[in-house]
């Protein structure tokens, strides 16, 4: 009876084939190599940023979905955990506006020629 109870409890556990983990592990290695190569070949500008973001999102997605088993959880948990961090993007937007403003006032009040300054677009 006790044996049956423990067996039942373990129905809740996440059981997946080892092969799946090895494939994801391999993919993470490939993606990390790719993002390292972005720097190694010193790609610049929008190509660099979009590649960095793409590899980052793919890696994060694989880790959360497979290694953390989120892909097999019920939607109620997925949304409770994954939706709140999306709001951080709003915060990013606010801080981008704020930092542009700070940059602008620094240029204005320190009175230097802004073309000498670092700008990510260059």
């Amino acid at each position, binding site marked *: 009876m006790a044996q049956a109870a*423990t067996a*039942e*409890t*373990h*129905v*809740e*556990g*996440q059981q*997946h084939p*080892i092969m799946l*983990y090895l494939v*994801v*592990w391999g993919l*993470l*290695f490939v993606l*990390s190599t790719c*993002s*390292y190569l*972005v*720097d*190694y070949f*010193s790609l610049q500008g929008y190509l*660099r940023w979009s590649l*960095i*973001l793409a*590899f*980052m999102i793919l*890696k*994060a997605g694989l*880790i*959360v979905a*497979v*290694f*953390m*088993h989120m892909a097999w*959880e*019920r*939607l*109620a*948990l997925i*949304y*409770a*955990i994954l939706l*709140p*961090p999306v709001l*951080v993007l709003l*915060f*990013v937007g606010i*801080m*981008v506006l*704020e*930092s*542009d403003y*700070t*940059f602008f006032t*620094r240029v204005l009040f*320190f009175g230097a020629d802004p073309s000498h*300054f*670092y700008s*990510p677009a260059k």
Partner: protein
Amino acid sequence: MGEAITRPSGWRGIAADLSSDQRAFKNVSWGKGMMWIFLLSDTFIFSCFLLSYMTVRMSTTVPWPNPSEVFALTIGGTKVPLILIAIMTFILISSSGTMAMAVNYGYRRDRVKAAALMLLTAAFGATFVGMQAFEWTKLIMEGVRPWGNPWGADQFGSTFFMITGFHGTHVTIGVIFLIIIARKVWRGDFDSERRGFFTSRKGNYEIVEITGLYWHFVDLVWVFIFAFFYLW
């Protein structure tokens, strides 16, 4: 626990789960649920760190030091950009792989393999922290301080030490956590239902998965730090 009930899926499933009796997160034990909620709060902490880094980097009028050069190592006479960070990334990913397999062997009640893989994960983690200590030492010797550095914007040092320091602390705590749980698994605590020293409650192999969640999260945070701090 282990109900054979078929639950509704999709939006109907969310509504049914959240409005149900006793527990909102079906198929998830309280331990796992609380770890997820803790990780959510930790996500906000790291988000705030990375956001403050973004803000100081965007608003400074002084050029930002080039991380590709700052973190380069000279190996055999040639300067390889960012190589130490790349190796650290691969080590952390490998530790995530061994952790995922430890969880699997835990649920199969193969306690020796599960404990061995957890200890291997902890060893990878300790290696990572060691390399981070090396990196910090190198940068401090080169004159990087939270208030300045030889190459550009002063904010570089403060954000670097804060973000990587906090992440390194998480890895260290993870290593300790892994060793404690690996010892319990090795001893067979979850087969003999031995009571925990702190909670006096019986545990089960799910704790391996919960430890795994924390460990994968540490790896996850590194993915973002690697992209935003080292590659950007």
